């Protein structure tokens, strides 16, 4: 097994990885940008090295610097987490070239599966159903039109190198095709550096179902069941669950076997995720394969008892899989709610700031993967996630009740978060029924509706208490019952920082 690994990531996922390292007795080296000097993952790791600057390019995407740090600390291996360099084949290659084990699949597998057309080709070869569409990149709108005439509408234009919901256009008729073709091509060129686009049938109201797979370097591959990630806003997953309420045991077995076959066909090793669309008639289509640990991996961990990071480390160190397909059992139900700091009143822009009051939920069946703490300032340079709240129970109903209880318990002030939104969703009949698709949010939540939730509108009883509380504070400030001094609050949260210019050689409150 490895003696020391470097974790090329930040925040909660760095903490997640470091925790497993500590449990296995592996030393960890963390990285941190200047803005992340207050982050917990750097104190948790055995060592932590500063990446000067704040922009991702200067820091967590800085391949040369990260390789240098690997050498400085003589690490055996590197875990990329998710995002940043996790699906960068060149980085995986650079690790290999420098004798550092990249904890993930081979550069070739990353490259192949990173291209949507190539991935579809592999899937078709493995016998995995794919969405009907053109099999190679289109350069001329005429080819798209030819396909459209044969397949009918609606259709979807996609950038081959796209991901995360970007580089996609829904086409509803022949007239709008030329314009959308050009704009998709332009976006592909601008955003992904490749104007390869293709067209395929647009699956309406699908569920997003993904299978977690584990493959070792000795040809063994298993799946750990599925996750249902249909609750998304603008292609960003907000709530995930395992298992999916839509799958029968038979369908689970079939889709799981398909995912395993695909991974084997791709020469895949380590942890990966095969994403499918499931249509209203329970037909499934391969969408793409993510060649890394997913944000939502904890729901799988909760229901299978498998520590996925531990499995990744064991596989990367050359061990054969420590569990067999028949050992995998789904032992209950788990949900994950992504708690983001966002302000719905200003178009859901990230609401970065300092967490004034912070009381995380706890108790049986609750797991919170988060780097937040009272007084923590969420840096504005990265994503707006405050934490991943995970609830586990024996049944879907109990897990939902547990999630609602934990959401109620979670107190965050100082920034606005999506907690009220989640509380609403977990009570919504369309959600609790399990009968929802990726259009759930658009169907049930206008931006106005969400901002209403966040401001507590329409909650008669609590309005009364709010009114009274505000009146009491006002009364006390106006009479001599309380001495308010706007400075006091500042003082209470005094944070000291060594100022950078030595010109003023004292500590100053910022």
């Amino acid at each position, binding site marked *: 097994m490895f003696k020391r690994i470097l974790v090329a990531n930040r925040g909660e996922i760095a903490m997640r990885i470091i925790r497993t390292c500590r449990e296995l007795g592996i030393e960890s080296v963390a990285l941190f940008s200047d803005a992340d000097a207050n982050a917990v993952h750097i104190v948790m790791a055995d060592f932590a090295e500063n990446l000067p600057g704040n922009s991702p390019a200067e820091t967590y995407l800085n391949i040369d610097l990260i390789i240098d740090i690997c050498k400085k600390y003589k690490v055996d291996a590197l875990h990329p987490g998710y995002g940043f360099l996790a699906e960068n084949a060149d980085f995986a290659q650079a690790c290999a070239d420098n004798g550092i084990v990249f904890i993930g699949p081979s550069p070739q597998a990353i490259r192949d599966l990173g291209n949507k057309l190539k991935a579809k080709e592999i899937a078709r070869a493995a016998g995995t159903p794919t969405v009907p569409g053109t099999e190679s990149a289109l350069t001329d709108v005429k080819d798209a039109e030819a396909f459209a005439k044969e397949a009918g509408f609606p259709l979807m234009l996609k950038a081959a190198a796209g991901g995360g919901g970007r580089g996609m256009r829904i086409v509803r008729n022949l007239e709008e095709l030329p314009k959308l073709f050009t704009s998709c091509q332009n976006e592909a060129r601008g955003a992904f550096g490749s104007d390869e686009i293709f067209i395929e049938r647009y699956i309406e109201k699908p569920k997003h179902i993904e299978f977690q797979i584990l493959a070792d370097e000795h040809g063994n591959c298993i799946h750990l069941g599925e996750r249902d990630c249909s609750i998304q806003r603008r292609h960003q997953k907000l709530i995930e669950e395992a298992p999916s309420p839509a799958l029968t045991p038979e369908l689970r077995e079939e889709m799981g076997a398909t995912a395993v076959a695909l991974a084997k066909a791709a020469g895949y090793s380590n942890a990966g995720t095969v994403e499918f669309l499931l249509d209203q008639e329970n037909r499934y289509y391969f969408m793409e394969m993510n060649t890394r640990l997913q944000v939502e991996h904890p729901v799988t961990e909760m229901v299978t008892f498998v520590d996925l990071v531990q499995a990744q480390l064991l596989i990367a160190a050359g061990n054969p899989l420590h569990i067999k397909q028949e050992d995998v059992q789904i032992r209950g139900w788990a949900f994950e709610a992504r708690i983001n700091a966002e302000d719905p009143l200003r178009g859901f822009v990230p609401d970065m700031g300092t967490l*004034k*009051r912070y009381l995380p939920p706890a108790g049986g069946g609750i797991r919170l993967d988060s780097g937040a703490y009272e007084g923590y300032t969420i840096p504005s340079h990265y994503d707006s996630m405050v934490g991943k709240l995970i609830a586990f129970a024996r049944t879907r109903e109990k897990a939902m009740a547990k999630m609602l209880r934990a959401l*109620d318990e*979670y*107190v*965050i*002030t100082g920034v*606005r*978060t999506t*907690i*009220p939104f989640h509380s609403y969703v977990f009570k919504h009949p369309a959600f609790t029924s399990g009968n929802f698709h990726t259009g759930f949010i658009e169907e049930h939540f206008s931006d106005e509706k969400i901002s209403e*939730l*966040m*401001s*507590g*509108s329409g909650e*008669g009883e*609590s*309005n*009364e*208490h*709010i*009114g*009274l*509380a*505000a*009146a*009491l*504070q*006002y*009364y*006390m*400030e*106006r*009479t*001599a*019952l*309380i*001495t*308010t*001094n*706007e400075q*006091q*609050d500042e003082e*209470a949260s005094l944070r000291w920082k060594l100022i950078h210019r030595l010109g003023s050689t004292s500590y100053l409150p910022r």
Partner: protein
Amino acid sequence: MNILSQVNEENFDIEIAIDPNRENCFCATIDGREVELKIIEAKPSSLTLSIDGCVRFYEFYKEKGRINTVAHDNRFFKVRLRNRQQDQLEQLLEEFGAGMGGTATDTRIMAPMPGKILGLNVKAGDKVQLGQVVLVLEAMKMENEISSTVEGKVTKINVKVGDIVNNGDIMIETEQL
């Protein structure tokens, strides 16, 4: 004090005063209905209150010196507050422009409860600091030291020793320096 408290466009008519008989408690009615109100903990800009036995945390945010948002239960409620009994001048100013509101509000020291003035520590022209004891009020059979809620120069004193004041009466007026 009679306060109009507006929460997300909904209006509540609130009457509030110290409860002389119970520690940390207030006599309060909301739209005429009596409410049990007690302070469990007070910090700068936040209160933990028991309202009809329901103990919850409320955090207050201000703009231009006025409370305009209450954070509660991970939601942010827009609020607007007016003192209906006493603040006619203030309301007039408010109607003429929000910009003046902030300035106008923080210059007067009001009585927190009914009582009798036992002593006055300042006179017109004096500078007062936030928290400085400005007068002594006999109420609830005790001598209460009243601290200044404002910082500035005293422009007018509306009470003299021996006067009886009511809850919310303006006792001292100041101007900002």
